[in-house]
């Protein structure tokens, strides 16, 4: 998730963030939310990525070096890391069920010079939502 979190690798301190769980009452997320979720291949690991596409959206991906368009199934979402060069995300394990999401990241709280809101960034050219 560089440079949103841990902008420089091998820094002295990792970023600490605030995760809010009120969103788990209704499971309503927006495009560009950064969320914490359990990994679909190992329930003990938690990952932190950005939601790019919500249920019912069409997302453009590159699969085996040819372009592909996938529809995100009902109840699932497509997550990607901001650092697309080195990120294990939906491009490898596919869309994840929204039930795996454990919270939404709202603020960076440590280190002090990086305290602030986590912005919602949304790559509009790859997602289209026809409802």
């Amino acid at each position: 998730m560089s440079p949103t979190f841990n902008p420089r690798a091998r820094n002295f301190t990792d970023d600490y963030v605030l995760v809010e769980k009120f969103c788990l009452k209704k499971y309503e997320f927006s495009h560009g939310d950064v969320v914490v979720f359990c990994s679909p291949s190992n329930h003990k690991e938690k990952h932190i990525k950005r939601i790019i596409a919500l249920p019912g959206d069409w997302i453009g991906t590159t699969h085996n070096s040819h372009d592909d368009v996938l529809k995100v199934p009902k109840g699932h979402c497509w997550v990607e890391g901001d650092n697309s060069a080195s990120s294990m995300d939906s491009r490898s394990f596919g869309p994840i069920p929204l039930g795996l999401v454990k919270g939404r990241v709202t603020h960076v709280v440590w280190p002090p010079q990086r305290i602030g809101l986590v912005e919602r960034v949304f790559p509009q050219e790859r997602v289209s939502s026809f409802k």
Partner: protein
Amino acid sequence: MRLLSYMGQWKSAAKEVLDRTAIVAKFLCLLHVTNNYLCSPTLVYGPSMLPTLNLTGDVVLAEHVSHRIGKVGTGDVVLVRSPVDPRRILTKRVVGMEGDTVSFYVDPMYSQTTVVPKGHVWIQGDNTYASSDSRHFGSVPYGLIQGKVFFRESNELRITRF
């Protein structure tokens, strides 16, 4: 003079109110921790687990410890968050763990075989004719399991253990 005695009464009344509120708050915290992390009663209903569970509703006790330490296995009845609607919780039986080969009937003529991927489980309702489960939406990630059912209170005066 009277003002001082009033103040004394208010102080003791306020102290009693705070003590009582603290007791209620501690009880609610204990209830929240127990319900979410230890054991909770749940009402389950629907036809997909007949004859194990009732159509019109059964109160079951589910424990929330086993799935965190990885002790959920084949044959357990579990509460699972639906992969199709994250606001619904399903009650199904685990029929296959990761790495198992599962065969199921798509329709009466054809059967299909799949291998359950790593970190996933295959869940099915006991009543295969009226159950929407892994045969329709595929293996579910282990992280969606919310708890394991271990006790059922029934209307008659017998309690069934799983």
